[in-house]
């Protein structure tokens, strides 16, 4: 059924449809309305889940870990400082190989205090062993939550579904919410893990000399997750008629210049690219949807015909540059030299217009060699 709902409500409806069994969360702007709605679903009896109110995000993740060890389908949502507070336990969740799904509503980290969109919060959690998806629309948010459960329960690794604060979380769009029986068919109930048995107590995650082996197995499964994501997407396409891929190219085939970005910036980039196409300038856009595991081969393949690449990051690593730009340069290493121009824009929710993207395109065309990072929208 088609509904007009916000990005956050789209998350809540997806978690309802996925029949999460345990939800533990602590409120934080701009995430709060996700768990508010879920608490309502639980109170009304629409969702048969245990809703655990906790005193911090650290405890929220601890509760999700404990619930997930029993095989319960678990969910939490957070943003920014809340995600940072969870950091320690994010490693535990992946190390224990728990298929927890979390929605992170991207918000800038302080200081200065800021409530608006910035991908640096989740990208700071890059190395925690969580799958990371970056969404562009309310529909994709719904579908990615459902897919995330499917994928996580296959590879036994947790997944983080990211949507930008306010730009996506609080924008109302038409979202097609499938019938419950269709979701049930696509996403059967999760199986209890056979290791937790009160009659035969055991110790989870204790000291072991096999540490390096466990980490290797996790990495191996993370690599396999790319294939599983593609399988899931193909099943999803057959079931619901929609699919997203690991990356989303827009007019990349014959493009001289390809703009690479993530999240909602991609929509603005597509508008700008289409404007330049009308003038005969061959611009394409590549949106990276899956960040961990990083779809390096797919990206290289999509960029193979380009002569220049411009990466636009709504995030950055101080002293280095945009985080997506670093990853893109790393996967292009050793291939045919393809100049990568780096841009940082929209930090702290600063609006990025099609004119801003136009400046990125012009500068990339006019500059013979890439030289450092260009910041869009700085004071003169």
């Amino acid at each position, binding site marked *: 059924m088609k509904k007009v709902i916000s990005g956050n409500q789209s998350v809540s409806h997806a978690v309802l449809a996925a029949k999460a069994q345990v939800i533990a969360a602590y409120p934080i702007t701009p995430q709060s309305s996700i768990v508010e709605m879920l608490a309502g679903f639980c109170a009304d009896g629409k969702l048969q889940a245990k809703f655990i109110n906790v005193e911090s995000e650290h405890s929220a993740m601890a509760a999700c870990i404990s619930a997930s060890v029993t095989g319960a389908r678990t969910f939490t949502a957070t943003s920014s400082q809340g995600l940072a507070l969870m950091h320690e336990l994010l490693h535990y969740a992946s*190390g*224990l*190989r728990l298929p927890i799904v979390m929605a992170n509503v991207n918000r800038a980290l302080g200081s200065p205090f800021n409530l608006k969109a910035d991908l640096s919060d989740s990208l700071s959690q890059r190395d925690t062993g969580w799958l990371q998806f970056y969404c562009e629309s309310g529909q994709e948010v719904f579908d990615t939550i459902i897919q995330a459960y499917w994928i996580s329960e296959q590879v*036994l690794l947790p997944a983080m579904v990211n949507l930008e604060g306010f730009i996506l979380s609080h924008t109302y769009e038409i979202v097609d919410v499938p019938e419950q029986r269709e979701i049930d068919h696509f996403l059967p109930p999760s199986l209890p893990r056979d*290791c937790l048995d009160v009659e*035969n*107590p*055991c*110790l*989870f*995650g*204790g*000291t*072991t000399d*096999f540490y390096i*082996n*466990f980490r*290797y*197995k996790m990495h191996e499964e993370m690599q396999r997750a790319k294939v599983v994501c593609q399988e899931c997407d193909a099943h999803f396409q057959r079931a619901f008629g929609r699919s997203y891929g690991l990356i989303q190219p827009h007019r990349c085939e014959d493009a001289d210049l390809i703009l690479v970005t993530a999240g909602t910036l991609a929509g603005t980039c597509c508008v700008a690219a289409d404007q330049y196409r009308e003038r005969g300038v061959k611009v394409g856009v590549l949106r990276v949807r899956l960040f961990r595991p990083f779809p390096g081969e797919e990206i290289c393949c999509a960029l193979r015909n380009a002569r220049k690449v411009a990466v636009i990051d709504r995030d950055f690593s101080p002293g280095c540059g945009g985080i997506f730009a670093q990853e893109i340069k790393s996967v292009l290493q050793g291939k045919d030299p393809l100049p990568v121009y780096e841009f940082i824009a929209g930090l702290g929710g600063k609006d990025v217009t099609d004119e801003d993207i136009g400046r990125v395109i012009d500068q990339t065309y006019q500059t013979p060699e890439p030289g450092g990072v260009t910041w869009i929208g700085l004071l003169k």
Partner: protein
Amino acid sequence: MKKRYSVKSLEEMPITAISFLTTEGNETGEWRSQRPVLDLEKCNRCGLCWMYCPDNAIRSEESSFQISYKYCKGCGICASECPKGAILIVKEKR
């Protein structure tokens, strides 16, 4: 006592670090560099050592207390709490 893992290859590895033992399987006594020795002559059975031991390594027996060297890490809290000076800390020899 079961060994935690006896796997020989990556294929045999369990998915997570699970040991089918309780924490009783962690013999923390191996960590000890000093050993508390209880002098039953001086001991007045007040039970303060038993109360203060952070590892539950002192057991209350019928008429006295016993230190379990399997779990005692040798922190020395029992010795410093004992009002009778009945617990002596000596260097651990292995």
